[in-house]
């Protein structure tokens, strides 16, 4: 494992070009992010149809075990990823928040399926129109239900986000993305965030 070279972006490239770092002297931040990305433990939060596809993703055909994620931790204290799979009803919303609060930092949320992402086809009194009204979401996986491949793409996106995102990011500070919208008088910067 020594003498492993990695072209990690940002920190190293700007200052010390061409320096080959080996594993022992790699930056701590990189190590921590690498470890977190490879040991994500999902918590069971299967609610409806998407739960069946989530279980199928853990099954032998689509095999989440290749990421070490096939064991869904029952206790939220032991998990760091909550995959909200299914529609969240009014009665379930406080429970969702309670389970999310019980998880330890760092924690991530994948909103699986359109019902969790936006209320889906149920735009009515009974369903919360998007779990991002209750918990901050990192990755949205669309589909009704998303096939296990879509879920795995979402998980890989999350892995990428963990490995290349900011270490000390706390949910609630916003994604920090600024885009430009063409207004009447010229471009207007619009900052997207998460509350």
């Amino acid at each position: 494992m020594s003498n492993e070279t990695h072209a990690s972006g940002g920190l190293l490239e700007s200052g010390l070009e061409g320096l080959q770092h080996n594993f022992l002297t790699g930056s701590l931040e990189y190590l921590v992010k690498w470890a977190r990305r490879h040991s994500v433990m999902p918590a069971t939060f299967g609610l409806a149809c998407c739960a069946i596809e989530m279980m199928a993703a853990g099954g032998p055909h689509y095999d989440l075990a290749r990421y070490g994620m096939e064991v869904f931790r029952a206790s939220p204290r032991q998990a760091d990823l909550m995959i909200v799979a299914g529609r969240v009803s009014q009665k379930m919303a406080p429970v969702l928040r309670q389970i999310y609060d019980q998880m330890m930092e760092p924690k991530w949320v994948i909103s699986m399926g359109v019902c969790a992402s936006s209320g889906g086809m149920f735009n009515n009194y009974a369903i919360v129109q998007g779990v991002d009204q209750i918990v901050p979401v990192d990755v949205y996986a669309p589909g009704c239900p998303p096939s296990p491949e879509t879920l795995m793409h979402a998980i890989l996106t999350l892995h990428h986000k963990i490995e290349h995102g900011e270490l000390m990011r706390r949910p609630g500070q916003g994604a920090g993305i600024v885009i430009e919208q063409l207004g009447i008088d010229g471009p207007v910067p619009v900052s997207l965030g998460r509350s």
Partner: protein
Amino acid sequence: MTVTHDPAAARTSEGAQELTSRDIVSAIERLHELGAVLRLSEAGALEAERDRTPDDETMIINMGPQHPSTHGVLRLMLELQGETVLRCKPVIGYLHTGMEKTGEQLSYLQGPTNVTRMDYASPLFTELAFSMTVEQLLGIEVPERAVWIRMLMTEMNRISSHLLFMATNGMDLGAVSMMLYGWREREETLRFLQEVTGLRMNHNYIRPGGVAADLPDGWRDGVLRLLDMLPGRLAEYDTLLNGQPIWRERLQGVGVITTEECLALGITGPILRSTGYSWDLRRDMPYLAYDEVEFDVVVGSYGDAFDRYAIRLAEIHESMRIVRQCLERMPAGDYRIQDKKVTPPPRARIDESMEALIHHFKIFTEGFKVPEGEAYVAIESPRGELGCYIVSDGSANPYRMHVRAPSFINLQSLPHLMHGGLVADAVAIISSVDPILGEVDR
């Protein structure tokens, strides 16, 4: 005269011969006085716990709604004395989606997309119940090929639903490898369903008037591939589970219910059949073409969780028999009724005929109007009697759409199954009832 518990008689083609009101009445009395159902609201339970003195021997604990052993978001309030469950109250509503209200806003053609998400383990059945109710209101009859396609697809769905039961039942009892085997087989079945309907789940394939599309070329190979593969795998489950002492001890004698209690509670499906009572809507009140195919109705004898598991395993075999007969006898013809007012015209005709274009437009935007009336049609889903009650006011949307979900009624048996058992058996019992919370809460 008593309800026959004679296993031999129960397995005859005539089914249970005699029925008496006397035993039913005593069962009703027994259900009421047994007091297995905990009649406390959530606030009341909190109060009871707060006021509990240390001398009290019973305590009320809460299991769920987020728990790895429940089949979805089911919450159980259990009154325990030590490890023994005295009374229990299932609290549901955590997945209430307002589907019946949503159904009133959608047209009849969009109805199957809504109801298919109720029982998400066997979605084609709810679509079938809805479509058959609408067809009864319309007074139309679907062509023969459509009937046989529906039968083929629903029996395939029954196989995949029972495989899901095998997998989750195994996992709930700790046999995690059963989970992997069940999903392995289920994926093959879903592959066939995807070939035909385009989706792995929530297919929206069975619509009023027939089915959405014809079977693709080469569907026979898909079916044969499954029929060749499954028996060997099911024999593996048999070897793995049926003879295993741990499996037997965990399931035999656990969660026993009697026939009279089932009938009084309105419970249908494998739970009713496990008590020795032979009632299956496919044979006793046939719909589609079930009176033309040969299959057996599997009946248990002891009414316990092992019987329910064994019944579902055997029902997979019976479904394979029906699928084989559908394969051999699939008639040629239309896959949906050619009534312009109900089903859209074939896509190719839209380019040729203005009338076809207008009909297609009107059916998909406005929807077709259904004459005034009300109808209730029930079918046999993997969980029991699944019925759909629609009241129509003559417009293009159902005025009232209600689905009689088998799991909703079957959940009422939980207190009676758990009474006097251990907490550890609670998981096995819930798993053997096989509820799908999507249709419980709708």
